[in-house]
């Protein structure tokens, strides 16, 4: 029979690529970092983020001493001695900004990681098992989505003892549902793929299928969900603390804004006490959003194609 022949000829035809058919190569995790580093927008985002992270880590070196200590008698405009001026209590605004980045970034990323993780678990389990499990988890998710976030934040924050732990719990509780929804819909489409069924037929356990077969195919969506959760975490933390619902003695960009407001900076026109922290929050969010767009574009070939075509037309 011609089994041997057909086998060997098939090998030879397959290795030569056919003309006119561009070889489709979907994007994978290992390509992603390299491509991120080549993307101009992602690069800007990463650099901004890196600066903030370095500042946060190096805070004791950059602004030694207690940032709450009064260095001058009262509010002073920016000068060479105090680059960003001082608050009404005479604290150095630059020192507060530097020390505040520790708490803001720390809580932001913790919230982002935890909310994404919970969303991931709920979404995957919901999509994989379907039926009753999905019904129950979807109802729970929808309830958390529907509860107005800010009032819940305020109530939870008011009842729990103040501190970074409380803030994290409150923000994760209100932030996970959105990512669960996104993950679930993506996982549902993966659940319908033949390779997931193939893994079931192979006899893989549910957890293995969820985390080793499905999860790697969701890398991009997990990444962008995580970034969105971090942005949410940093913004919402600042919001809570601005309202005085955090630990007001801790130093963060949110509490900086809180004290600036309490001390009447707006009325007195001491803009240097609130603008630096506000700009810092905006910059970090901006950097994360840039990275998010780039991730989106790299993992979604259709978006990438659009920009490429635009480039050529130019």
């Amino acid at each position, binding site marked *: *029979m*011609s*089994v*041997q022949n*057909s*086998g*060997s000829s*098939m*090998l030879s*035809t*397959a290795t030569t690529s*056919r*003309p*006119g*058919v*561009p*070889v*489709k*190569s*979907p994007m*994978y*995790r290992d390509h992603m970092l390299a491509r991120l580093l080549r993307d101009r927008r992602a690069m800007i985002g990463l650099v901004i983020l890196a600066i903030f992270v370095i500042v946060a880590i190096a805070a004791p070196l950059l602004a030694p001493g207690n940032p709450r200590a009064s260095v001058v008698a009262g509010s002073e405009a920016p000068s060479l001695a105090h680059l960003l001026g001082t608050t009404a209590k005479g604290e150095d605004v630059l020192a507060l900004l530097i020390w505040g980045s520790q708490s803001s970034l720390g809580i932001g990323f913790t919230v982002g990681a935890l909310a994404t993780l919970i969303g991931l678990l709920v979404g995957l389990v919901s999509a994989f098992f379907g039926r009753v499990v999905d019904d129950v988890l979807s109802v729970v998710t929808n309830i958390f989505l529907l509860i107005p976030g800010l009032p819940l934040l305020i109530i939870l924050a008011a009842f729990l003892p103040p501190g970074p732990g409380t803030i994290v719990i409150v923000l994760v509780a209100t932030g996970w549902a959105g990512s669960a929804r996104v993950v679930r819909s993506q996982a549902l489409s993966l659940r319908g*793929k*033949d*390779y997931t*069924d*193939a*893994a*079931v*037929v*192979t*006899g*893989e356990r549910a957890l293995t299928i969820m985390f080793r*077969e499905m999860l*790697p*195919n969701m890398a991009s969506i997990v990444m962008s969900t995580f970034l969105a959760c971090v942005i949410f975490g940093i913004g919402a933390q600042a919001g809570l603390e601005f309202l005085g619902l955090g630990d007001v003695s801790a130093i963060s960009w949110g509490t900086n804004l809180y004290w600036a407001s309490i001390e009447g900076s707006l009325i007195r026109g001491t803009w240097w006490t609130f603008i630096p922290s506000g700009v810092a929050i905006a910059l970090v969010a901006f950097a994360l959003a840039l990275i998010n767009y780039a991730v989106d574009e790299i993992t979604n070939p259709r978006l990438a194609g659009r920009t490429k*075509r635009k480039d050529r037309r130019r």
Partner: protein
Amino acid sequence: MTTTPSATASSTQAPDAADVILDVRDLTIAYEVNGRSVTAVENVSFSIRRGETFGLAGESGSGKSTIANAILKLLGGNGRIVSGSIRCGDVEIESLTGEELRAFRWNRVSMVFQSAMNSLNPVMTVGDQIIDVFTTHRSMSRAEARDRARQLLELVGIDPDRMTSYPHQLSGGMRQRAVIAIALALEPDLLIMDEPTTALDVVVQQEIINEIKELQARLGFAILFITHDLSLMVEISQRLGIMRHGVLLEVGDSAEVYARPTHEYTRKLIDAFPPVTRDLSAPAPASAAVVDGASPDAAADAAGEVVVSFRDVTKDFTGGSMFARRSTRAVDGASFDLHAGEIMALVGESGSGKSTIARILARLEQPSAGRLVVEGIDVLRDEPRRASRRYRNTVQMVFQDPFGSLNPTKRIRHFLERPLAIYSDLSAAQRRQEAVALMHSVELDPALLDRHPHELSGGQRQRVAIARALAVNPKVILADEPTSMLDVSVRMGVLQLLKRLRDERGISILYITHDLASARFVADTTIVMLRGALVEGGASAEVMDAPQHPYTRLLVSAAPDPLRRTPFDREERARVRALIHTITEGRSPAQDRPAHRFVSSTHWYSQDGLD
């Protein structure tokens, strides 16, 4: 209308310049891919005469669709004609621009696209879409256009009252007819059909092909017919060209090329689509004859041991909203036995429930009722919720789409070593060795183990999928249309591989397909499924040579056959369809059905609904 008279007429005629509708000369087309120029079509020349059907056959990527698109100037931003010319009558297509081009398209040349069923606008009624063509290209009032649209629908065999239907309310075949109606609306000289029936079942395909032939006889347009199915092409076209890698390998009279292919590749394509009924005058391929001789023996040897016993299984799918529950019966009291070392083909049209049977056997779907015994395990009683690993170790599945059944983030190694890790105590090093052995057993280069699926061709991927199923050393493999997504030239290889695995390892295979010819080629026994119920079964050759049930007869007669003797009879087809409709509508509940009637010791058919 038969092909012979016109075929001889056109081949004996000298190519009269006035008679040529389309003239393609030394055409070379290249695509720009990542800054590089890739030649898709190289130096192709052919011409199509008035009223003729010219076929272009070839596999995906052979450049046949590129030519079709070039004729309508639809190459897209990155494709361009490097050299050569396309002339349509006295018009040089390359020179057309703007308004001229718009007038040329559809008036002179129209096209039925590959995914024609999806090329209708889902938010417009079919009637409006035809009326649009008239009001756009002809200065016609809406009322006039409406009348013409009604005539047109009637012409292609759709009830004109379906004018107000939306595409989703029509069956696949009707949508295809509607698309053809739109293409013919302006009575073009040339109709390009790019795989117009690939997505359709054989019976509908035959009806549509016949419809096209009749329309062609009445309206006199020429057709450029593109397909990869050579049997179909020989049946419909007078002349054809075979393409591979952008090169036109041979052009000639269809019957001539089919009987005496001059090119090795053409031979391969012809072999890939064997006609279902073997004509006595045609010499049977030697390899198939050997197989036919061996099959009854294999079936007889195995008859003692039943591996899978499928008894009165019913599966209902419930859908719809919370308030309007709808239930669809996908499998309706189906029973069959699969013996050790047997290859059994399960054939039927799409939607007949054959894939559901595979999914039930793979324990991906829970049957609503019935009994399923595999290797002595009464599956639904012993393992009601999910399959045990012992079961998975016995029954494995090969999926239809090799592009979807391999996880794109994994390396090939993963697919072979995971089952080994689950079912054996082999060490990591032993698993690596075993994976290499598995690659050899499916005739693949072990060097591919460290590749990702997207780096492999479709045929290679399907072989990987088969190797994955083999890794657990199963007793039964469910193969759900394993070759339908593959290119023609690799189909035979995969089917032969399945056969060899049965011969060497004694694995039982349930081969699910809609292609009777391949069922005849690969399977010892064939069972036929009609709307969820099995209506006929027996040794493949017996079932296809002497079909008993009207539905089986219909399927066999509708399969493309280049050597067809009996012309299509419209009334006869309508009668058979009506009969089959009464059979499915008046079907008795599973327990009340009359016993099967046996034609021979193994060949049976259902008498339910037959008087």
